[in-house]
C-alpha cells in the first residue's frame, strides 16, 4: 500500500510531463509543416561542417 504513495505521483507526473511536452510542441509550431520536416532531413546544411 505504501508503494502507492510513490507510484501514483510518478505515474501522474510522467503523464503530465508528456502532456506538457505536447503543449509545447504545438505552441512552438512543430506540427505546422510535417511534410517539410520530412524533407529537410535530406538537405545538407553547408555552413556547419564539410
Amino acid at each position, binding site marked *: 500500500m505504501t508503494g502507492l504513495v510513490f507510484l501514483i505521483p510518478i505515474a501522474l507526473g510522467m503523464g503530465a510531463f508528456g502532456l506538457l511536452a505536447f503543449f509545447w510542441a504545438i505552441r512552438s509550431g512543430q506540427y505546422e509543416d510535417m511534410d*517539410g520536416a520530412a524533407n529537410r532531413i535530406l*538537405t545538407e546544411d553547408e555552413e556547419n561542417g564539410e
Partner: protein
Amino acid sequence: MNAHAAMAAFDPDTLQDHRFTVPGMRCAGCISKIERELPLQNGIAGARVNFSAKRVAVSHDATIDEAGIVRVLERLGFEAQPVAANPLAQDDAETRKLLLAVAVAGFGMMNIMLLSVSVWSGAGGVTRDLFHWLSALIAIPVIAYAGRPFFSSALMALRYGRTNMDVPISIGVLLATGLSIHETLTGGEHAYFDGAVMLLFFLLAGRALDAAMRDKARSGIAALLSHMGRGASVLSADGTARFVKSEDLEPGMIMIVAAGETLAADGRIVEGITSIDNAMLTGESQPEPVSIGMTVHAGAANISDPVRVEITAVSGDTAIAEIARLMDEAGQSRSRYVRIADRAARLYAPAVHSLALLSFIGWMVAGAGWHQSLTIAIAVLIITCPCALGLAVPAAQVVAANTLLKRGLLIKDGSALERLAEADMALFDKTGTLTVGKMRPVDLSGLDHTGRAIALALAQSSRHPLSKGLAAALSAQGVVPLPVSQITETAGDGVVGDWQGVPVALRRPTAGGDGPASELSIGGKLFTIHFTDALRPDAAETLAQLGALGIPSQIISGDRSQVVGAMAETLNLMATGELSPQAKLARLQSLKEAGHFPLMVGDGLNDGPALAAAHVSIAPGTASDVSQQAADAVFVGDSLRPVGSAIIVARATMRIVRQNFAFAIGYNLFAVPIAMAGLVTPLIAAIAMSLSSLIVVANSLRLFRAAG
C-alpha cells in the same frame, strides 16, 4: 544558417513579413534552394518554407517589395504569388485547440483508467475512496477543458431551440460527472469518471480528424488559387511602372498588361494589339483579337502581346461584380442543408432522453429509492451516449477524403461528401472543364526529334501562354531539350536563340491564319504549330462511368452553340450553348425545383453562380479563384477521372455511415435493456463504449479500398 549572418545587417524594426504561395515546391532541394538563395538578395533578411502549405514566409525591409520578391523567386525557377494577410489563421487555431483538447482528454483518460482498473479488480474501502478522489481531481479539470467544444455547441443549439449531436453528449457527460462526484463524496461504489472522459476523448479524436481534413483541403486549395488579377502595373506620369493593388485602381489609370496576365479592371485598349481569352468570363473558347479602342473586361486573360489599357471601371462596378452578387444569392440555399449526423440526432436525442426518464420513473414506481433510480437513469444515458454515433460520420468521411486526396480531389468538408452521394445528374461547363482550358499544340507529327528538342528549349524559356502549352506537351512526350544558347525573348515577337551556330526561333507566325499558332524556325526551315484547347484525357470514360452510376450528364456552356454542339456530338451528350451566367443559374434552379440533385462541374467566373446554386459542385484546380471558392471540391491535374471517383467514394462513404448507424442502433437495442435493468457497472460501460467505437472506426477504414 545564412540568415543569421545576414540578419545582423538589418534593423529588426524596419523588417516586414510577407507570405508567398509557391506551388512548384516538390522536393527537399527546393526548400534549401529557396531558403539559401533568397537571403542573398538585397533587402531580404530571411526566408522560411512551409512545405506542406507550399508557402514561403519572407522577412524583408523596405528596399524590396512583394513584386520584387516574386521576381526573385521566378529567377530561382519558382512561380510565386503573394498571399493575402494570413486568411487561414483562424481555422488553424481551431484545429490546434481541438488537438490540445484531445491531448488533455487522453492524459486524463489514461490516468483515470489506471485508477479505475484497480477499483474494478477489487480494491475496496479506503483505497477505493482514495482512487475515486484522485479520479475526481483529474477528471473535473479535464472535462472542464476538453468538454468545451461540445458544451458551447450544445448551448448554441439549445439557445436557438434546436438540438444537435452535442446536446445528448453534453447532458450525458455532465450528468455522469455530477453523479460520480456525488458517489465520491458519499463513498459510493461506482464512479463513472473514466466513462465520461473516455467519451470525450473518442469524440474529440473524431472532431480533430474532421478539422484536420478540412484544413488540409483548404490549404491545398489556397495553394491552387492564382491570386492573379489582384493588381496591375500602372504607368506613372514619369513613364515608370508601379504595382497598384486592385482596390486602389482608379478610372483613367493606364495599366500595362503583359502576355499571360489577367486584367484587374475593365478598360479600353490604348496601345497594342493582342488576343484576349474570355473563357473565364463567358466560356468562349476561341481567343478574341482586340486592338486599340476596344473594351476588355476584368478577369479576361491577355494571351499574346503586351498592351496598355485605360481603366474605365474598377472592382465594385466591373462585369465580375454582377456575377459576385448572383453568387451570394445562389449560395444561400446550400446553408439550409442538414447534415446526416444532425438529422440522426433529431431522432436520437429525444429517444434517449425519454428512455432515461422512463427508467427513472419506472424504478421509482417499482419502489427503488431516488438515489438508485437516478443512478440507473444516468447509466442509461452513459451507455447510450452516442460515442459510436459521434464517430460514425467523421471517421468514415475522413478516410474517404484521404482516399480522394490521393486521387487528386480535395473535398472541402464532410457535408460535401454527403451531398455528392445524393447527386442524380451532372452538368458540365465546356471550356476549361471538359477541355483542359489551356492552349495545347494540335499536331506535332511534322516535327522530327531534333526539332522537338529545340522547340522545347525555346518554349521553356518563355512565359507566353502558347510557349507554356508547347513546353508542357513536349515534356509530357518525354522530350529532352537541346542546349540552345543566347536565348532572348522579345515581348510580342517571340524567343530567338542559337543552336550549334544555327539561328533558331519560336515566334508569332508571319502569315496570319485562323486560331492561335506559333512558328518554329530552325536555320531557314519553318514549321507552324497550331494550338487548340483540347478535351481532357479520360473525359469520355468519366462521362460513361457517371452514366453507369445512374448520373446522366449534359453540357451547359457560354460558348457559341456551334462549338458546343460539335463537342456534344463527340461525347454523345445533350448540350446547350450561349448561356449567360444568369441562364446557367436559372437552369440549375429549375432542375432543383423539379426535384433533382444536380452536380455542377465548372471553372469560369461565369459558372460561379451555378456552382453556388447546385446541390453539389466541383471545380478544376485551374478554375478562377471565385469558382474554386464556390465549389465543394476541387480536382487537380488534367484528368477528369477524379469526378467519377468522387461519386463512387461518396456513395461508398454513405453506405459505411449507414452501416455505422445501423450498428450503433443495434448496440443500443442490446445495451439499453441491460442499463434499464440496472445491471450496468462502470466496467461494462467502459468496455461497451470502447468496443463500439473501435468497431465503427474499423468499419470506416474499409473505405481505403473504395474507388479502387
